[in-house]
């Protein structure tokens, strides 16, 4: 026994300690509990993986531990089992590693905030559920983590619960995810019904032995329903709308939950159930198309956003789209590889953005930043590393994984490659747009006025922008190193026992074109925002219609509001409640009711005392009944 349960239980303990006693604890104690529990969990992951030989070519088979039976009903037995294979190993390292760094960073970032203990309790609870999600050895346990991380996301988005926009965003995240979970749950029911077990190993072994579907059937059904769940959690079209709003939460939350870990759960889930997808003719194609569309659409929206966190939020949606493309074209290991590198550079982008927001006393609008390279050099350098990585600069982590996805896409369908490359160009452009707007030019903020009115509510009115303390920039530096060098961790090779690599070398030019697109995007951003800053506005004016469309995110929120939310609420209120329930059903009952009132009145008058009246009721009833029986019984 490797005591895998310790990995999630440690953060759970942190949650309980801080959640119950946190109000009475000093900040350093809260820090020790919160950061310590996650660090210990990270160390336990390293220790376990080492013992299982993951770092030395071992762990080719799934290692599983059984704890107790959770639900037993008829033939269906669902246990609390944790399992580790190489896929889980990657996820565990990413979740606990990046998670530890973000916890450390947050102790600095949140130091001036109210509800400090509450924040760390939620963050630890999130780690517990996320680790349950990746360790769970069956569908239902994965679902536990899945819903649990959704809960923590809800709590942390709505962390500033005095503000309506924050709690609205929290509700939206939870409910949109619930729509996804609806699909996920139905998939689980199908699996449970057809395989009589929810255990991953058992189900996948059985699936392996079954023929590939030639037309839409069970596997297509399960895969598409799982995909519905994945589009919710991983913010893909059509359920991506919650993620940009989720930026209402504190920035470390955006980094950990809404960029590095939780939103990748959908990618993990599809990789985990890849056997089912491989047995369906359509499902994988649909995954790829959903991913590609999302990557493209989100990138276009990212071009025109002014809130620094919104830019990175749409970038996250777009990058998750790439991962889905990877999965959809059958390059599962490339998708997971990109999941990991993305965790590094996107966490860094958000934490860097947090550092910038911190420096500007809560300001999030990039139009009020600028020239920060003078004030926050460390942040600038680390953000540059992340930006280069996401833009696909050669040899950096993002390029390594993205190129693998694009090459696999080309193998699958060349047009997918070209859309991907174009999107990569846009990605480089909008990320460097943000970079240049923030760090170049002149500082445009109003020091005295910007008194913590940012969305993050994170201000303490220091005036001059200032560099962040060491607890914040050291995690940034570590993530910068990982963003630069993460591409040399050969995840596809590591995952080979699970996802066999395709034979043959892809053509070199595919890589060159993709790199050129990235560099072109950077150059264009440099031209637009450093060389001639007037240019973007004039272009925006020329293409006013398009600009309005993407600036307003294609009006998707408004569309959903008017086609789904308002009809449901309005219909329920007017039709179901006021007409259906009150007038129709209750109207009928009230006809009886008004008669009843009269009868009740008479009955009440007939008896003088309540208890006696009750007794009389019973006796009268019994006498009547017995008389009736006596009569019927005699006539039998």
């Amino acid at each position, binding site marked *: 026994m490797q005591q895998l349960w310790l990995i999630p239980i440690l953060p759970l303990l942190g949650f309980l300690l801080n959640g119950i006693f946190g109000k009475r604890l000093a900040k350093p104690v809260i820090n020790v509990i919160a950061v310590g529990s996650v660090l210990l969990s990270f160390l336990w992951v390293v220790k376990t993986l080492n013992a299982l030989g993951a770092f030395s070519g071992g762990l080719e088979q799934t290692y599983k531990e059984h704890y107790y039976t959770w639900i037993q009903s008829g033939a269906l037995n669902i246990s609390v089992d944790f399992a580790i294979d190489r896929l889980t190993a990657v996820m565990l390292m990413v979740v606990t590693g990046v998670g530890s760094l973000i916890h450390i960073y947050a102790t600095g970032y949140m130091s001036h905030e109210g509800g400090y203990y509450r924040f760390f309790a939620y963050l630890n609870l999130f780690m517990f559920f996320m680790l349950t999600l990746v360790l769970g050895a069956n569908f239902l346990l994965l679902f536990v983590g899945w819903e649990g991380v959704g809960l923590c996301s809800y709590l942390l988005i709505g962390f500033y619960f005095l503000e309506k926009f924050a709690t609205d965003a929290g509700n939206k995240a939870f409910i949109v995810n619930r729509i996804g979970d*609806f699909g996920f*749950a139905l998939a689980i029911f199908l699996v449970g019904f057809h395989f009589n077990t929810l255990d991953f190993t058992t189900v996948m072994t059985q699936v392996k032995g079954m023929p590939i579907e030639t037309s839409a059937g069970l596997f297509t059904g399960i895969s598409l329903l799982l995909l519905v769940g994945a589009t919710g959690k991983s913010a893909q079209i059509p359920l991506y709308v919650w993620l940009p709003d989720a930026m209402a939460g504190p920035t470390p939350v955006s980094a950990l939950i809404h960029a590095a870990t939780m939103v990748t759960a959908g990618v993990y889930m599809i990789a985990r159930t890849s056997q089912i997808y491989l047995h369906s003719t359509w499902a994988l194609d649909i995954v790829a198309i959903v991913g590609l569309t999302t990557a493209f659409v989100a990138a276009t929206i990212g071009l025109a956003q002014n809130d620094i966190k919104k830019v990175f939020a749409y970038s996250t949606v777009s990058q998750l789209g790439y991962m889905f493309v990877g999965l959809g074209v059958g390059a599962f290991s490339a998708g997971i590889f990109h999941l990991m590198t993305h965790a590094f550079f996107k966490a860094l982008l958000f934490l860097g953005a947090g550092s910038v927001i911190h420096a500007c006393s809560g300001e999030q609008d990039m139009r009020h930043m600028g020239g920060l390279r003078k004030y926050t050099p460390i942040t600038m350098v680390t953000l540059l590393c992340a930006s280069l990585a996401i833009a696909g600069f050669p040899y950096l982590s993002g390029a390594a994984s993205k190129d693998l996805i694009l090459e696999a896409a080309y193998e699958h369908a060349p047009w997918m490659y070209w859309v991907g490359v174009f999107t990569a160009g846009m990605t480089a452009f909008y990320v460097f747009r943000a970079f240049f707007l923030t760090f170049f030019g002149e500082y445009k903020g109003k020091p005295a006025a910007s008194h913590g009115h940012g969305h993050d509510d994170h201000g303490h009115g220091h005036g001059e922008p200032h560099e962040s303390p060491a607890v914040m920039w050291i995690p940034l530096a570590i993530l910068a190193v990982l963003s630069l060098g993460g591409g040399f961790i050969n995840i596809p090779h590591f995952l080979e026992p699970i996802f066999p690599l395709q034979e043959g070398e892809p053509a070199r030019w595919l890589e060159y074109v993709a790199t050129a697109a990235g560099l072109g995007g950077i150059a264009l951003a440099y031209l637009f925002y450093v060389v001639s800053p007037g240019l973007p506005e004039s272009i925006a004016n020329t293409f006013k219609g398009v600009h309005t469309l993407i600036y307003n995110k294609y009006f998707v929120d408004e569309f959903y509001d008017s086609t789904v939310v308002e009809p449901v609420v309005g219909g329920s209120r007017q039709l179901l409640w006021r007409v259906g329930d009150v007038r129709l059903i209750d109207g009928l009952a009230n006809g009886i009711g008004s008669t009843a009132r009269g009868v009740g009145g008479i009955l009440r008058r007939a008896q003088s005392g309540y208890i006696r009246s009750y007794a009389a009721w019973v006796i009268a009833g019994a006498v009547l009944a017995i008389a009736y029986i006596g009569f019927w019984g005699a006539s039998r």
Partner: protein
Amino acid sequence: MTLLDIVLFLPLVGFLLLLILPKESSRMAAMVLSSVIFVVSLGLLMPYWFQYPSGHTFSTDVQWISYPPIRYHVALDGLSLWLVLLSTLLTPIAALVSWNYIDKRVKEYYAFLLLLEFGVIGVFISMDLFLFYVFWEVSLVPMYFLIGIWGHERRIYAAVKFFLFTMAGSVLMLGAIIFLYNRTGTFDYGQIQGMIQTGSLVFDQRTELVLFLAFFIAFAIKVPIFPLHTWLPDAHVEAPTAGSLMLASVMLKMGTYGLLRFCVTLFPDAAHRCAPWIAGLAIIGIIYGALVALVQPNMKKLVAYSSVSHLGFVVLGIFTFTQQGLDGAVYQMLNHGISTGALFILVGYLYERRHSLEISAYGGVATPAPNLAIIFLITTLASIGLPTLNNFIGEYLVLQGTASANFGWAVFASLGVIFSACYMLWLYQRTFFGRASESLSHHMPDLTTREWAAILPLVLLMVWMGSFAQTFLPSISVQNAAILEQTKKLRTERVAIPARPVAEVSRANR
């Protein structure tokens, strides 16, 4: 005299005792008595602790009335065990939440509470149909008065409505019981069941359907199943906190219990034939209840409509005739008792502070009362079926069972899970989030020790039932397997044409 008899009659003794004792001590006496009853009732777990007997335990069968032969026959099995424990657990909690809330006719109030406990325990353990009917009526009366005397403004209207709805149903049931007696010469459930099982009692299809419907309507009103639900919101809104608690948590279970205990096992053929219709009503109830809950401006009405939705899952589970469906249904009965009961308690806490049930009167409660906010949140999450909390297990099992019976049903029923998140989270946001007004902050102290004591056991149970379902499930499962076996056996014996099961299989495969 078995322990079960003691547990049954202690509340009656308590009721009589309270009538004798002076008014000043009745609050304390009720608290002590109901707590003692709960502790004693824990002894009922003994036979179920290390093994899961499928038959009856603590059986007592003595003659009550010689002619017609009505017997005092009570017994416990895996189905009734947990419902009895739920009743004995919630009675002291109901007494505790009434502590300050009830200031008039205190003595009668607590006396009725104990009488109610007597009635509901009797319902869950009666093995004689007539005895069952007597307890069914006995439980009705104290609730009528709890609403009618200690309720809010429109209490008389609500009480009468409650009474008449239930009475209308129970008259039908009484008729059916008497019809059964005329055919068999006995009221004993076990004997009648045995006759049906052995084939010595056979109904033609129409008679069976009529009998089934007579029982079904009585129980359907009690559950309540759409469209017989409109008495429930009124009753809840007008009832005092403890009344709502006992009504939602225990009394509604009398309906679902009856469906499973009597409707399904006495008339399996009719039950199977009506199953698609009933499942349809259950699904409508799930979605309809949730949608109407979404737009309620009144907290208690919202929770009441959510009950309609939640109990739809129970009914749906029963009429899937699958092991998972039945297990989930029974588990969901307990879950609903715990989590909806807790919701009513918490709404009661809010009411005691602000004297309003309108959601718009609140907002920002989390700031002055953080502990109340946390407990309310956990209860909300339990209610919307978050994994690791209790409702998830029940809903999962029900839906899993439904999916094996008919996947289309499962699709529609699962929609209810989305809507439940909508109405509960929206309620939570409007009540607890935002900035608290000055007047609200002044009248919103956090939980008192007494309030903690009442709610904490329920919260712990939510976590326990969600994380360690096997504490409860095996004994339930064994009983449901027996019920399922009975109905299956009867069906295969009785249904001459085998076309139907084949059609079902093919539909399930589709």
